[in-house]
Each structure stands twice: as structure tokens, then as C-alpha cells.
């Protein structure tokens, strides 16, 4: 345990990653590894649930930037949910809400993937 955990739950074609703890320059590689594993398994419909994330720095945001092109190029997406106001503020400062679909909860994100079919 180094302050960050990822729990993966697959729901049909969609994989949900529930992230917990803090996402900084030290832990970003843990999330990177988990997303890379999804892509290796050809799973491109990804929901990241931020409910239990307490902190994010630009190193954490960079993880999403690093994968989004490949994911969208494979008809998938990375949708983000359950952000606390503190986490959302960092995304907002960097203009990320125009780039990523941010939903209130997992259900909404799953729904929106299903509606795209």
C-alpha cells in the first residue's frame, strides 16, 4: 500500500476503475499500468470512479492525457465520475471538462456508453 489503490469491476463491455487515495507523481504509474492492462485486453470503454480519491496533481491528470487518443481511436472513451469539488477544481483549472465526459456517478457513465451503441 503506497497511498493509492485501484479496484477494477467489469460490467459487460465497460470496465470501471475505482481509484482510492492520492494520485501524484509517485502513484501515477500504478494507474497507468492498470489502464495499459485494459488496453492490452482490448477493453476501451473505461469509467474511472473518483469517489475515494483525496488528491490529484498534474502527474495524475497526465495519465488520462496519455491514453485518451488511443482509447478514442479504438471507439472507446474514458469517462470520469464521482469527483469531489476539490478534485474537480484541478480538472477545471486545466480545462479538462471540455476534453472529458465527467458524470455524477457510475450509473450515468454506463448509461451513456450504452446509449452510444
Amino acid at each position, binding site marked *: 500500500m503506497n497511498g493509492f489503490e485501484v479496484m477494477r469491476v467489469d460490467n459487460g463491455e465497460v470496465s470501471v476503475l475505482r481509484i482510492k487515495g492520492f494520485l*501524484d507523481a509517485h502513484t501515477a504509474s500504478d494507474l497507468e499500468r492498470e489502464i495499459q492492462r485494459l488496453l492490452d485486453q482490448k477493453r476501451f470503454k473505461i469509467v474511472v470512479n473518483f469517489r475515494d480519491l483525496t488528491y490529484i496533481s498534474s502527474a495524475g491528470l497526465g495519465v488520462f492525457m496519455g491514453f485518451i487518443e488511443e482509447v478514442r481511436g479504438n471507439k472507446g472513451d474514458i469517462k470520469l465520475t464521482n469527483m469531489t469539488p476539490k478534485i474537480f477544481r484541478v480538472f477545471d483549472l486545466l480545462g479538462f471538462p471540455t476534453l472529458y465526459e465527467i458524470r455524477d456517478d457510475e450509473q450515468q457513465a454506463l448509461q451513456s456508453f450504452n446509449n452510444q451503441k
Partner: protein
Amino acid sequence: MKNQRTKKNFHLRIPSQTEYLEIIREFVSRVARKVGFKEDDASKIELAVDEACTNVIEHAYGGDGKKMIDIAIQVDYPGQKMSIIITDQGRGFDPSKLRAPDMKKYLQEMRVGGLGVYLMQSLMDEINFEVKPGPKNQVKLVKYLMNNQKQK
């Protein structure tokens, strides 16, 4: 405390390794809250300092974990400001070339990294770089406690 001219200093010297960013954040945000910053501002300061130290770890020292980072906090009364000075002895850079990225271009290109300085500028009231590669590089981050005249 009121109307009393005082300064308070806090100092942390810590190895240049990402695993200690957690301790740096804890130190800085504890001091910020202790001297009266609200949760919101304390977390802005915490993030700005994390970004500055991450730059030192990854760029100035290029991942050499045996090097040290110095983090000095000075709280001024009644000026009501907190200054955080982060010093390293690593590789410097040209601060005149250090500009906030063009966000529009950045978002179009979806590039990774390079967001730290932009964040530091957005989160703090003042930011200053002093670069003398080798002997000393410093970044000074300032946040005002009271009137928040440059509230962002």
C-alpha cells in the same frame, strides 16, 4: 498576535524522491492551516508545492534520489502572507522561457506533462524563479492570507 510584527519559519529538508511528496504535502498543508488558511487555500498551496517539488525531482535532479530538496516556509505577520521557498542544487533552466503553456494549443494536441507551472501560477498569488544552475535554483511561491486581493 494582533498588530505584532513577527515572522515564523518552518523548514523541511527531504530526499528528492516522489515517494516523499506525500510528506511534503502534509508538512505544507499542516503549516498553512495552522497559520489560518482555510481548507480550500491550504489545498491550493499544497498542490502548488507538490508541482514545484515534482519538477525538482524529475527535471532539476533528473531522478537522482540521493539529492536533497529544501522547503522553507516563512509566514509574515501582519503582512499575512505565506511564502514557500523551494531550493535545489540541480540543473537549472531559463526562467524567461518558462511560460504558461498555450492552453488551447495544449488541449488540441493533448500533450502529456508541462502543466505544473501553469498550475502553480493559477493557484498562488505570486511565483518567482531564481536560477543559478549547480549552486542554487529557487522557486518562491506566495499566498496571501487575509484579503486575498488576487484571489483566483
